């Protein structure tokens, strides 16, 4: 361990964002790029997403998750980028030293630039504090997807799904295909958190009941799930007494939100945003730690893999330039979310840079609304656009020309 291995760019995670980031870095001129993937093959969560709907933005056609991964992996191979699978980064320091463990050895790597692309994890039953017993038969939707799609395992016979995240919706259809009854999808909010097209194609087309403003207030069953008690919730999301109803089932799937997996980022001292759960980044997708970049679901939860890849390319290009020593300096203006905006990315912009892509999400469904980006001190309008409808499930992208010297605020009004 005396002669520490050195790399120009190390990408942590080989999913849709990480693979694209490696390509971006290589194309920006970084020579020595390494992808570290903890699973045994590249592709990340794409490998278990056997449904189609991927690639529409990147490849102009819809393909399955594994096919999408395969195309990115082919490009990575063509570029001669080194990728290690079955290798996990256990630690990352603020001076860009990584501790990596794999069957071939435990070692330290020093990088000139690091790209965080670790993805996200699913919220659990415990995090949303569902009371009741703790029987077998409770799975997060993603774990169920792995067991069903990659391991051919029948996880139950009668399922209830809590939450309307995209993976839950996709799994409702998948289980129905396999003859496993889906007795209902229950969502605490008055709107679904998954994409509209998934609600249509995965639930409505199969007559699977969806109940909004409804949650599970108790899980029953000693050894295996025997039933769940559902109840309507009021506007404050509190269960309404008297509205309880017991739904017999042997399996409960949870699709109640995704959390960027920033444990390594925290170790490295990267500043995180409480709004996104991901890093605070500038327009190059660099975090608060110089040389560390972030992209994909570890930065913000994407609803489409293509967008995670797009963000990966951008982070990769920036990291590649950083590794070559080409990087802009300068103070940064701050971008703030205003009324009806849940968050906006990036949070920091270097004044005077070229056009910048902004991502934002709204807090609730909005109709006939107008999105405005304004200067905080000058009140000057930098961007304005009308939308027929905006949903919290849709990640929006706009392009602005950044100001020279002031903070910005983005808002949305009906």
């Amino acid at each position: 361990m005396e002669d520490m291995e050195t790399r120009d760019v190390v990408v942590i995670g080989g999913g849709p964002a990480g693979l694209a980031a490696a390509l971006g870095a290589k194309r920006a001129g970084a020579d020595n790029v390494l992808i570290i993937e903890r699973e045994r093959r590249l592709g990340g969560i794409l490998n278990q997403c056997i449904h189609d709907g991927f690639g529409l933005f990147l490849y102009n056609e819809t393909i399955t998750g594994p096919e999408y991964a395969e195309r990115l992996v082919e490009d990575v191979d063509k570029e001669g980028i080194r990728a290690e699978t079955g290798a996990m980064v256990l630690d990352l320091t603020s001076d860009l030293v990584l501790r990596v463990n794999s069957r071939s050895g435990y070692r330290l790597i020093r990088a000139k630039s690091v790209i965080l692309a670790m993805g996200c994890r699913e919220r659990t039953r415990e995090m949303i504090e569902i009371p009741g017993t703790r029987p077998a038969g409770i799975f997060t939707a993603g774990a169920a997807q792995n067991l069903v799609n990659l391991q051919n395992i029948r996880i139950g016979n009668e399922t209830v799904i809590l939450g309307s995240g995209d993976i839950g919706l996709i799994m409702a259809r998948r289980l129905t295909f396999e003859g496993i009854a889906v007795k209902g999808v229950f969502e605490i909010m008055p709107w679904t958190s998954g994409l509209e097209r998934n609600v249509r194609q995965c639930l409505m087309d199969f007559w699977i009941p969806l109940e909004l403003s409804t949650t599970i207030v108790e899980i029953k069953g000693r050894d295996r799930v025997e039933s769940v008690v559902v109840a309507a919730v009021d506007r404050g999301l509190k269960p309404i007494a008297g509205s309880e109803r017991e739904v017999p089932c042997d399996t409960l799937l949870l699709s109640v939100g995704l959390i960027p997996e920033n444990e390594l980022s925290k170790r490295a001292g990267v500043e995180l945003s409480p709004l996104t759960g991901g890093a605070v980044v500038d327009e190059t997708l660099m975090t608060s730690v110089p040389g560390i970049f972030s992209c994909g679901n570890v930065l913000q939860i994407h609803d489409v893999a293509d967008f995670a890849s797009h963000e990966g390319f951008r982070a990769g290009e920036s990291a590649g330039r950083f590794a070559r020593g080409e990087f802009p300096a300068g103070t940064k203006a701050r971008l703030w979310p205003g009324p009806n905006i849940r968050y906006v990315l990036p949070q920091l912009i270097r004044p005077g840079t070229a056009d910048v892509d902004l991502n934002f999400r709204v807090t609730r469904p909005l109709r006939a609304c107008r999105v405005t980006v304004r200067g905080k001190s000058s009140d000057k309008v930098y961007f304005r656009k009308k939308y027929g409808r905006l949903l919290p499930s849709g990640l929006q992208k706009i392009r602005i020309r950044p100001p020279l010297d002031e903070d910005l605020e983005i808002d949305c009004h009906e």
Partner: protein
Amino acid sequence: MEKPGPWNPGESPRQPAAEYDVIVVGGGVVGCAVARELSRYDLEILLLEKESDLAEGISKANSGVIHGGFNVPPGSLKARTNVAGLRKIYGLASELHVPHRKTGKLVIALTDDERPRLEELKADGDRSGSPDLEIVGESEIRNIEPLARGRWALYSPHTGIISPYEFTIALAECARRNAARVLLDAPVLSVELRAGLFRLGTPKGAFAARRVVNSAGLFADEVARLAGISDFRIYPYRGEYLVTDKDPGFKLRLPLYPVPPKDDPGLGIHITPTMEGNILLGPSAEDIRDKTDIASTRSVMERLKDEAGRLMPELRRAPFIHAYSGIRPKLVDPQGREKFRDFVVEESGARPGWINILGIESPGLTSAPAIAEMVVEMIGAKEDLRLKTGFDPGLPENPRFAALADGERAAKVAGNPDCGEMVCRCEHVPRAEVAAALRNSFGARTMDALKRRTRCGMGRCQGGFCTPRIVEIMQEEGIPLDGITKRGGGSRLFYGRIKS
């Protein structure tokens, strides 16, 4: 990768109906401590556990506190075994290489009015021999624990923390290495007394012994009844807990307790750090009907946060990753007038040779080593116990990969590539530790047994990522898909393959 052979279930006990000197019923911390203590002597010992793993009952779901001995009436068996157990347990945990820490503990009075209760506790503790108790003021409280707030506190410097289930399993492992037999999934269903031998019927066969130690925890009254002893009734009192993430944004050094509420059958809702850095909130105390009802309830979850938040406001916005409940085996009838019942550790008058251990609630974890010695003394009073040569009081040290320094990790992986294959990303558990846990000598092979031995699934993803991988490894280790359970019995995870 080297393929392991088919699963060879742990050492099976001798032929059914072979004669043992002592059968211990119940693989909780008390039963395992008794089995280990007895294994010093030239005795044939069998431990029967009804569940699929040790520590599946009371011993897996408590605060994991090594008590100082001031919360129980002076002169009681609870107080005597607590103080005696305290003197032994740190050394024992070190010998067994079970992670533990002498943290100290603060019992906090939020107002001057509560100070007299602290004085009472201190006086009780002093009389019982609880060492070095001290009443401290505001600034001293802050010195001891910067996160604590209070007017006065009772400081017990010798209180500590330990994982109760790791300790229990280690005691059993030590007993087994000293030739005690341990059999899981073996509930005692019948007891016959014939020709001076107790014959215990289980689904795994009948086992006979000259002596029986009934340490069946919540079910010790029912096991006693099988032997014709109807003097006892155990009343289950549930205690709910919440668990924070390991990294809640602050570090709690030591357990913080409120002044015990007058009407609370427990010690009051307290906050306790674990060895891994999580914080436990709880427990509540509620008498319930069903000894197996370990559900969590919404109202108590809210109350835990409220009351713990009084001791430490930071906890109100802490990230919680788990909830669990444990059940106290109380001898106090919730409908009765009596407020206190002592531990029962006695040989039955009606059934000589049958030793009952009942009502081992708090401070049972701390008392267990002392209770085990009492049992040996009782047996020693009846027959000559000969010390065995070659008794090994400890276990080899086996630190987790996650706890090693860089050089040690590199050496481990170089020696065994399975140490380089990470299975649990939250707790950094490599395949080697998963495989070793699945090959445990007791044959405990459930998801929960694996979790207790490796910490897989105890982290912030609660098994979301590692479960699919563990399911693969379990099958590679010889467990059929439909034999994978959460905790044995009917807790199956799966219903076969989707497509054959």
